[in-house]
């Protein structure tokens, strides 16, 4: 635990700023002269489990990264709707100290909003006015190992604490009112390639968190920590000691993956099960089914990304949906979308729990997930088995061409399809909304031994100079798999979606546009130019009877979109 305990948050933040002004993070910081007057605590109400459980019907607050435990990102308020959204205007803009990749999901508790930045700053803001209550800057250790931007996707809230995780692989609890440190615990050793960018999930006194590291030969995990003291409650290794599986030669959609099973079996006989360095990070939130007392999450790519030779077998449970018992972390079921992936096509977009039609038309509890493959997959919640997959949302070219030493072109590229971007659903329309990238890449394979926590790609994936790139917003009927509408965007899409009961869909674009779409037709109803890439998921809330939509505009490291440092809240005139 770091010994930074201040009774007042601003003092803590100032101390941190002074102490770490020499860190590289300061390179991206903006000089910011502050009023040094002591500020009163943030008036954040205590977050009860009941509030978290019922978050899906709470139009005043936004209590989970993806709105509710089911991760529907469907906001129940309809004050802002298809008939008046054209009058949506900025209510306030808050400029943060860090101008770097911004992927935070704003969390709103009462009138207090929590947002995070790259390099792990946390802000508490007045959600009505945009004024700052406190600002906490994580004391970053010297060792951080991460591949795709110094991102942080936000906080979880429970009781009187705010929880977030850091690039140097720590889980941190702050006082929700003051921003002072309550406890901090090391999740894993960053020198071995572990880092954190995801927001945690708070449930039943536990804080749930996975890990990054699929590009560094980690052994992935998903964990529950005690919300009171940061002690480990349970650990689930996403890579079992027997990771071989059933030698499946096709992906979930029936495409032949051109595996050389004989060569893999020979490798297995020679080097054994590769589970210790097989990757399998979990870098987006789990969905929670409180009735079944289960969690559902998706597991990322195997290590090394593009070289399958040193990792024979299906590489369980990489690129899979996994369900665990919430109390114990015990395995319940899994479904692998891509066995023995050699294209870095992680499963990462957060799974959504909704009722779906099974193959016989019967309504059953389902799990909906969008892959980097560009498919929306619909699975059964009881045994994880797949019901259907959608039409592909992006073109598939040379699918599944194996990487070669010279480089083989394939679409989707390593960013997808759907990247980490969360989907939203509208259950009245049976639609899931996903944002996609159309970004062809060449995949080159190169073999190298496990490098002790260094970058381990097993080759390279290259954006092809001169090839057109773009994106799309797709609405997919999860009961039929058909695409209802699709809007092409000039740039690849990364960020996330919010749907509302006002029949709207909000999502942002890399060139700074933040737009509202008609949920049923895809017609663009409102647009706002934010000046930097809107590559973060929007949230919504209401104060004093007035609804707000809020989103971060800070661009993105991974696909190098224009950076900024703004949190922008919108409301009707």
């Amino acid at each position, binding site marked *: 635990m770091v010994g930074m305990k201040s009774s007042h948050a601003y003092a803590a933040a100032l101390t941190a700023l002074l102490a770490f002004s*020499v*860190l*590289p*993070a*300061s*390179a*991206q910081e903006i000089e910011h002269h502050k009023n040094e007057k002591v500020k009163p605590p943030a008036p954040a109400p205590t977050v009860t489990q009941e509030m978290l459980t019922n978050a899906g019907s709470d139009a005043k607050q936004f209590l989970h990264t993806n709105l509710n435990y089911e991760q529907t990102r469907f906001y129940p308020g309809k004050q802002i709707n298809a008939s008046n959204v054209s009058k949506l205007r900025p209510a306030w803009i808050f400029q943060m100290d860090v101008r*770097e990749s911004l992927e935070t999901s704003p969390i709103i508790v009462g009138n207090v909003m929590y947002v995070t930045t790259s*390099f792990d700053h946390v802000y508490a803001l007045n959600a009505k006015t945009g004024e700052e209550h406190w600002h906490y800057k994580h004391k*970053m250790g*010297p*060792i*951080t*190992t*991460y*591949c*795709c*931007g*110094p991102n942080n996707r936000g906080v979880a809230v429970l009781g009187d604490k705010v929880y977030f995780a850091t*690039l*140097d692989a720590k889980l941190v609890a702050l006082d929700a009112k003051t921003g002072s440190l309550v406890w901090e615990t090391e999740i894993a050793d*960053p*020198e071995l390639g572990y880092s954190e960018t995801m927001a945690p999930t708070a449930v039943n006194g536990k804080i749930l968190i996975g890990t990054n590291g699929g*590009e560094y030969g980690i052994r992935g995990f998903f964990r529950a920590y005690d919300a009171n003291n940061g002690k480990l409650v349970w650990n689930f290794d996403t890579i079992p000691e027997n990771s071989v599986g059933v030698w499946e030669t096709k992906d979930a959609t029936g495409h032949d993956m051109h595996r050389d099973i004989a060569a893999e079996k020979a490798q297995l006989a020679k080097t054994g099960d590769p589970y210790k360095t097989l990757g399998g990070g979990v870098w987006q939130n789990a969905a929670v089914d409180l009735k079944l007392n289960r969690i559902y999450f998706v597991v990322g790519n195997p290590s090394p990304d593009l070289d399958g030779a040193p990792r024979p077998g299906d590489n369980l449970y990489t690129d899979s949906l996994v369900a665990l018992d919430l109390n114990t972390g015990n395995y319940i079921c899994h479904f692998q979308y891509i066995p023995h992936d050699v294209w870095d096509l992680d499963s990462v977009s957060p799974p959504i729990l909704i009722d779906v039609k099974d193959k016989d038309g019967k309504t059953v509890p389902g799990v909906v997930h969008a892959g980097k493959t560009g498919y929306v997959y619909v699975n059964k919640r009881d045994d994880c088995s797949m019901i259907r997959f959608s039409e592909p949302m992006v073109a598939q070219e040379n699918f599944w061409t194996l990487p070669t030493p010279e*480089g083989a072109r394939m679409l989707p590229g390593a960013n997808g399809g759907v990247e980490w971007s969360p989907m939203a659903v509208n259950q009245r329309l049976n639609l899931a909304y996903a944002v996609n990238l159309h970004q062809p890449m060449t995949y*080159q394979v*190169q073999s*190298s*031994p496990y*490098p*002790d926590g*260094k*970058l*381990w*790609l*097993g*080759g*390279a994936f*290259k*954006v*092809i*100079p001169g090839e057109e790139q773009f994106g799309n917003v797709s609405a997919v009927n999860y009961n039929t798999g058909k695409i209802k509408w699709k809007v092409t965007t000039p740039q690849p899409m990364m960020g996330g979606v919010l749907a509302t009961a006002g029949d709207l869909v909000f999502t942002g674009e890399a060139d700074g546009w933040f737009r509202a779409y008609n949920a049923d037709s895809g017609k663009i109803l409102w647009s706002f130019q934010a000046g930097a890439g809107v590559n973060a998921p929007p949230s919504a809330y209401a104060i004093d009877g007035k609804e707000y939509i809020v989103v971060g505009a800070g661009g993105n*490291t*991974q696909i*190098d979109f224009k*950076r900024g440092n703004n949190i922008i809240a919108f409301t009707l005139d």
Partner: protein
Amino acid sequence: MMSAKRSAQIAIAGIVAAFPLMPTAVSAASVEENAQICAGCHGENGVPQAKTTPIIWGQNEGYLYLQLRDYKSGARKNEQMSSVVAGLEKADFKALASHFAGLKWPSMNFPSPPKDVTKVALTAIGSVGCTSCHLDQFQGDGTTARLAGQQPEYLFDTMTAFRDGSRANNPGMSDLMKAVQPADLKSIAEYLASLQVVGGGQ
């Protein structure tokens, strides 16, 4: 462009001239004493003696630590550096990394390359996605090196060494450099060297 072999000879000459009696066990020494050894090649004022020796003042702490660790383990090979770190331990590496990360990166003012060179560099950089790790302005972070303002000859040599495998302590970088056309490396080096250093120990 100077050959790697010739570069190494100059580096050896520099270090031998400065420290004819190379210490082999200095773990008990203070960080300042250990840092003095480094100054022989890396410069008393942060400006290295040779163009192929990297600037380490203001370099990122985690990166410096990993390189010292890797010289000790042999994962990164360099005769001089192996001798320097032979008597040092993990705590010494951390102290040295912290020490040098806190010093101000020297202003070398490498010139901006012509537009056509910059274009070649940006195309190659965009293709393999260098900014994913080295970040928007090539300042790096944590265990990823700051490239902006680094000596162009060192950058070229390093990319070449990653490419041909002679620098073997980051196979991911080797993979990425193998995906870059050799003819583009010089342009990348010149472009990166010309970029402004932000932060860098200050």
